[in-house]
C-alpha cells in the first residue's frame, strides 16, 4: 500500500479537498471530505463529461492503484451507476461489483445499472491518467513501462507523482528507471536547484538517453554558467561510464561469438587437428545437429508438450548421436580409403557435404525451420552500468566451455581417449599393443562429428535452421583451428575467443563485413610469422 504520510500527498489531499468543496454538486456519500478517493469516484458518477474528466484527474493525482481497474472499466464502457442509489459499479461478465470496494453488488441484473457514457475528451483524460497511475500498479512490468513512459514524456507536472512512486518503489531495476525519470523531469523544473539535482543524477547514471538529455540541457542553459559547469562535470563522468559499459558489452559479444566459433571448431580440432582429416562436410555435421534439435522439438510438441522446456536438453544427446553416427559411417565407408591423401579427402568431403545439404533441402524444404528457445533461456540480464546480456548468448558461452571441458576430459581420462592419443602418436606401436586402430579412427571421427552436432544445438538457438546453416561457419572454424594451432585444444579455445573478440571490436569501426575481411587478412599474415599457429606443437609430432 502507498504511504500517505509524505508531504506532497498531504498537499494533494488538500488540493483534492479544495476541488471537492468547489464542486457544484456536493458529495452525497458520507465522509466524502475525509476520503478523497471516494470523493473522486463521486465525480465520475457526476453526470456531465466535465465532471467525469475532473474525477479522472483527481484519481490520477491520488496515485492510488485502486483507481486503475475503475478507469479501465470506464474506458471499456463497463462502469455504471446503480439506478437505485447512484453507487458506482463495474459490470463484469460474472456480475456487477462495487467500484470502490470490489465486493459484489445486488441486484445482479444489468438492467438495474445505467452505464456511464464517455466522449473523446474523457478518453484523452483517461489515457493520461492511466499512464501515470500504472506507476503504482502492482505489476512489475507495467510499472517499468510507466517509468519509461514518464522518463520520455518529461512533464514537470509529473514531478510530485514520480517522487512518490520513487519513494515507494522496491524493485531495484524499476527504481533505477524512476530515478532517471525523476532526474529528467527535474531538468524541466523552473527551480534552478531542482534542475541541478537532476543534472547530477543523470551524470551518475549510465544510459545513452541521459547523455542526450544532458547535451540538450547544456545547449538550452547557456546563460546559467553554474548549470553549464554542472552539466559538463556530469557529462564527463557519464561518458567515462558509457565507455566502460560499451567496452564490456563488446567484450561480451566477442565472447559470445567466440563461443559459437569454439563450438564449431572443437569437433574440427579433433577430426582435422588430431586425425589430420580435412572434413569439409563438418558444417553439414553442425547442420545435422541443428535439424536433430528441430526434430526433437517437433516430437515433443506432438507427444509430450509438457517437456517443451527441456526439449533442448534432450536434443543435445540426440544431436551428438545422430551426427556421430553419420561421422562413423562416413569414416568407415569413405574417408579411411583416403588416409594420407589430404587433398582428395578435402574434395571428397566437400562433395559429400553437397549431397547431404541437398538431401536435407529435399527432405525438409529450403526454408528456415524455427527452433524456439526454452523459457529459461529467454530474456536479458541487466547488469549495473547499463550492460545488457541476452540469456541465450550467456548459455551458449557456458555450453561451449562445458563441451570443451568434457572433450578434454574424454581425451585425458577415458580408455577411449588413451587409445586415441596412442593411435595419433604412433600408429604401428599402438597396433602392436593390441589397440584396434581402425575402430579407434572411426570412433575418433564419430566423436568429432558428434561434437559438431552439439554445436548445431547451440546454433539453432541463435541462427536460422536451414540446409546451409553450416556453410557460414566452416571457413571461420578452419581459421580458428589454423590460428590456434593444429592439434591443440587450448589453442582452439584461445583462437576462438581472440577471433570472436577481435571481430566484435573491429565491427563498430569497419562494419561487420570489413571487420571479417580484416580478420581473414590478419590471419593470413599471422601464419607468415607462425606457420603452425598460436600454440605450435613441438618435437616429433611436427613433421608427421
Amino acid at each position, binding site marked *: 500500500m502507498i504511504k500517505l504520510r509524505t508531504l506532497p500527498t498531504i498537499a494533494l489531499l488538500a488540493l483534492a479537498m479544495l476541488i471537492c468543496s468547489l464542486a457544484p454538486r456536493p458529495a452525497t456519500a458520507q465522509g466524502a471530505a475525509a476520503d478523497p478517493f471516494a470523493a473522486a469516484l463521486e465525480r465520475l458518477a457526476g453526470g456531465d463529461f466535465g465532471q467525469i474528466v475532473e474525477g479522472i484527474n483527481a484519481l490520477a493525482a491520488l496515485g492510488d492503484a485502486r483507481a486503475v481497474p475503475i478507469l479501465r472499466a470506464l474506458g471499456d464502457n463497463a462502469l455504471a451507476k446503480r439506478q437505485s442509489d447512484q453507487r458506482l459499479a463495474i459490470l463484469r461478465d460474472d456480475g456487477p461489483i462495487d467500484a470502490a470496494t470490489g465486493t459484489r453488488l445486488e441486484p445482479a441484473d444489468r438492467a438495474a445499472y445505467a452505464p456511464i457514457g464517455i466522449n473523446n475528451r474523457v478518453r484523452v483524460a483517461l489515457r493520461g491518467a492511466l499512464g501515470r497511475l500504472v506507476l503504482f500498479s502492482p505489476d512489475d512490468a507495467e510499472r517499468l513501462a510507466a517509468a519509461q513512459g514518464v522518463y520520455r514524456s518529461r512533464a514537470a507536472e509529473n514531478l510530485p507523482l514520480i517522487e512518490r512512486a520513487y519513494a515507494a518503489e522496491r524493485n531495484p531495476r524499476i527504481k533505477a528507471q524512476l530515478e532517471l525519470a525523476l532526474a529528467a523531469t527535474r531538468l524541466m523544473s523552473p527551480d534552478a536547484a531542482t534542475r541541478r539535482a537532476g543534472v547530477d543524477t543523470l551524470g551518475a547514471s549510465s544510459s545513452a538517453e541521459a547523455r542526450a538529455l544532458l547535451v540538450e540541457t547544456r545547449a538550452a542553459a547557456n546563460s546559467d554558467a553554474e548549470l553549464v559547469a554542472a552539466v559538463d562535470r556530469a557529462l564527463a563522468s557519464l561518458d567515462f561510464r558509457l565507455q566502460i559499459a560499451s567496452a564490456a558489452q563488446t567484450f561480451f559479444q566477442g565472447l559470445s561469438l567466440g563461443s559459437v566459433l569454439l563450438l564449431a571448431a572443437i569437433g574440427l580440432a579433433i577430426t582435422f587437428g588430431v586425425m589430420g582429416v580435412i572434413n569439409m562436410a563438418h558444417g553439414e555435421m553442425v547442420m545435422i545437429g541443428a535439424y536433430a534439435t528441430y526434430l526433437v522439438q517437433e516430437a515433443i510438441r506432438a507427444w509430450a508438450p509438457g517437456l517443451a522446456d527441456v526439449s533442448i536438453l534432450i536434443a543435445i544427446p540426440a544431436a551428438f548421436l545422430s551426427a556421430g553416427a553419420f561421422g562413423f559411417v562416413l569414416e568407415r565407408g*569413405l574417408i579411411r580409403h583416403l588416409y594420407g591423401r*589430404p*587433398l*582428395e579427402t578435402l574434395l*571428397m568431403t566437400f562433395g559429400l557435404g*553437397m549431397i547431404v545439404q541437398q538431401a536435407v533441402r529435399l527432405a525438409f524444404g529450403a526454408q528456415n525451420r524455427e527452433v524456439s528457445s526454452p523459457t529459461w533461456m529467454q530474456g536479458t540480464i541487466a547488469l549495473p552500468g547499463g550492460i545488457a546480456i541476452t540469456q541465450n548468448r550467456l548459455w551458449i558461452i557456458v555450453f561451449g566451455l562445458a563441451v570443451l571441458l568434457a572433450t578434454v576430459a574424454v581425451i585425458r581420462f577415458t580408455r577411449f581417449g588413451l587409445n586415441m592419443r596412442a593411435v595419433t602418436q604412433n600408429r604401428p606401436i599402438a597396433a602392436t599393443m593390441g589397440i584396434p586402430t581402425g575402430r579407434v579412427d572411426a570412433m575418433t571421427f564419430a566423436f568429432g562429428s558428434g561434437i559438431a552436432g552439439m554445436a548445431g544445438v547451440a546454433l539453432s538457438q541463435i541462427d536460422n535452421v536451414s540446409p546451409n546453416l553450416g556453410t557460414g561457419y566452416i*571457413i571461420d572454424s578452419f581459421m580458428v583451428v589454423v590460428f590456434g594451432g593444429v592439434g591443440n585444444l587450448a589453442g582452439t579455445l584461445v583462437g576462438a575467443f581472440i577471433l570472436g573478440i577481435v571481430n566484435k571490436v573491429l565491427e563498430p569501426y569497419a562494419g561487420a*563485413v570489413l571487420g571479417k575481411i580484416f580478420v581473414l587478412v590478419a590471419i593470413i599474415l599471422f601464419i*607468415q610469422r607462425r606457420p603452425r599457429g598460436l600454440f605450435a606443437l613441438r618435437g616429433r609430432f611436427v613433421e608427421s
Partner: protein
Amino acid sequence: MGGPITAALAGGRAGGRAGRSLWLIWAIALAAVPLLNKLPADSPFYLSDFVVSVTGKWICYAILALSIDLIWGYCGILSLGHGAFFALGGYAIGMHLMRMIGSRGVFGHPVLPDFMVFLNWPALPWYWHGFEYFVFAAFMALAVPGTLALVFGWLAFRSRITGVYFSIITQAMTYALMLAFFRNDMGFGGNNGFTGFKDLLGIPLQTPEMRSALYVASLLALMLSFLLCRFIVSSKLGRVLVAIRDAESRVRFLGYSVTAYKLFVFTLSAVLAGLAGALYVPQVGIINPGEFSPANSIEAVIWVAVGGRGTLSGAILGALAVNGAKSWLTTVAPDLWLFVLGGLFVAVTVVLPNGLIGLLRRRKRDEGNGQ
C-alpha cells in the same frame, strides 16, 4: 604417384598421329560452331545463338580448368580460390563494358554507371579511370589477378604454406573478396554487380556476329593457353614443377628455389584464370560477387579431377563434360544436379583418381595387353 608423372610426360609429347587428330578437333570446333550458326534457322544443323553463347561459356570454363590443372596437376598446389582470379578478370572487363554503356543507362548519366548514380556518387572513383579504353581493361583483366596471385603466393610460399593449409587460405581469400565485393561502397555494384552491357568495341553484344566472334576468341584463347601450358609442362621447368609436386623438400635440398618456381606457375595460372573470366563476362552479360563464392572455385577443381588431373586435355575434357552434364541435368531434373555433382566429388577421389582420361588410357592399355 608414378601414374601422373608418366601421364604428364605423355601429354607433353603429344605428337604424331594423336597430335594431328587433336589439331583437327580444334580446327573443326573453331570453324563449325560459327558456321552452323550462320545457317538458316529452319535447317536441321542450325545452332542457335544461345548454343553459341553456352558453348563459349564452357570454353571459358575450360581455360579456368586448364589454369587449375597447371598448378594442381603439375605442381601439387591445390588452390580453392581460383574463382577469385576468374572473377577479377571478369570484373575488369565488366568495368569497361559498364563505361561503354555511356548515357544509355537507366539514369542516362554520361559518365557514371547506373548503380553509382543510384548511390549518389558525385564522381567516378579513381580506380575506375582508364577502363574506358579496351586495351587498358584487357591489360588489367590479366594484371590484377596476376598481381594478387604474386603477392598472395609470395606470402604463402615464402613461409612454406603447403597442402591443405594453402587450400584453406586460398578459400579464405576468395571468401574475403566475395564479402568485400558484396559491399556497395566498394564501387563495384555491390550485390548486383555489373549487368545491362550494351556493346564491346562498338559492336552490340547481342548480335550473332558478336557472339560468334566471342566464341572464336575464347576458343583461340583456349588453344593458346593449351599450347603455353604444354610448352611449360614439357620443358625443363615443367619437370622441376612435377618434382616439386612429388617431393618438395628434396627439390629444395637439390638447390632449386622452390618458392620462385611455385610463384611463377601460380601467377601464370592466375593470369590464365583472369583471361577466362574476361572472356566469360561479355558472353553471359553479367558479373556479380557470387562468382567469388568458394563453392565456384571448388567446383572448378572438380572439373579437373573428373577429366584427369595432370593431363592438360583432361582438364579441358572435364570442364566440358561436367558443364555439359550440368546444363542438361539442371533443365531435366534440377533437384538431382547437386547429388550428381557431389557424387562426382566422391567418385573421382575414391574410385577414379585419374579421371576420365585415366579411364580412357587404362582401357587402351588393356586392349593393347589383350592383343
